């Protein structure tokens, strides 16, 4: 065993209170420096034990614990208040949303554009002969409409799918359903007029 190995063993043996091994003992017998370190380490361990015994009873005073518990309670109150505020805010939002829904929600869902013909035909009767204007907004429930007779471009009517094969003129007389906004919703060719032409 050399001095480097010895020093490590000396420290660990002194700390643990174990007696030196035979190899260490042999080295200590022949090395005065390591032997001196061995006695110093044993003394230091004893002193350290005394200091540890005195220190082990040390702890912070009760006021520290009280202060920490007060801080915990204060934090809990803050969290509780925040949580309650959140719950109230969420509940208020639900109530407001519900009230807005009751006030603003239409009594019937809006009709999709492709349902115009159905809407118009239901308003004017299935056999009324009206054809929905493509792309026109649906009639709202209870919306007032008016029917106006007018002359329309026959090619435009043909694009709407009206049977105008027998029509030679550029214009035809037709009944046009107008919504409250004045925009056309449906068209019906006056067959009598058409036939007269």
């Amino acid at each position, binding site marked *: 065993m050399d001095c480097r190995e010895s020093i490590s063993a000396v420290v660990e043996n002194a700390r643990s209170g174990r007696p030196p091994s035979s190899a260490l003992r042999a080295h200590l017998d022949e090395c005065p420096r390591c032997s001196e370190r061995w006695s110093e380490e044993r003394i230091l361990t004893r002193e350290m034990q005394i*200091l540890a015994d005195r220190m082990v009873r040390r702890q912070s005073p009760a006021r*520290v614990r009280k202060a920490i518990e007060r*801080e915990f309670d204060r934090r809990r109150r803050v969290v509780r208040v925040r949580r309650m505020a959140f719950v109230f805010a969420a509940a208020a939002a639900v109530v407001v949303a519900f009230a807005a829904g009751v006030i603003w929600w239409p009594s019937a869902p809006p009709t999709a554009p492709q349902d115009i013909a159905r809407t118009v035909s239901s308003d004017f009767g299935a056999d009324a002969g009206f054809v929905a204007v493509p792309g026109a907004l649906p009639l709202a429930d209870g919306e007032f409409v008016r029917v106006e007779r007018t002359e329309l471009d026959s090619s435009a009517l043909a694009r709407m799918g009206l049977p105008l094969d027998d029509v030679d003129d550029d214009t035809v007389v037709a009944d046009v359903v107008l919504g409250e906004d004045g925009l056309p919703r449906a068209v019906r060719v006056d067959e009598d007029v058409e036939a007269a032409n």
Partner: protein
Amino acid sequence: MKNERMRRTDEELYRRLRGGDKPALAELYERHEAALYRYALCMSGSRSIAEETVQEVFCRLIAGAGRFDERRGTLEAWLYGVARNLARRMVGGGTEPVAEAASGDDLLGELLEDERTVSLYRALDELPPRYREVVLLCDLEERSYEAAAKLLECPVGTVRSRLHRARLLLSARLAPLQRAGVVAGARG
């Protein structure tokens, strides 16, 4: 109930604490307060700094400031890490030597009744902080090298070499006193 509490790890207690469980705080306090206080006392040499450190460590735990992350280490290591930083900052921004910065020497005053302990305490107080903390953890608190390494977040070999170096420095400082017959070695 008591046994059930004893089985809980620090990390379980921390989760309960975060959920608002006050007994979990009490349990963590009972487990760690005294050791943290002694650590802060030894690192600062001041009782008031040690008290303030302990209080602040637990207040940070409650507040979740610098939140503890289980994946990065144990709760105990986190507590010691916070205590170390706080004590250093309170003593002098981490730049001033602790022995010079700590005024009042509260602990020393209480130990004056025992001359031998005072000598060792003074020698310990003059050690650089990195040596002083391993002496405190391994020799005074009697933790294993592995446990100290976890708390200090450094390799076991570093703890061992620092302790050996610290003990050599302490022995060198105590040797003149031993020769003068102040400490135990000269008596025995």
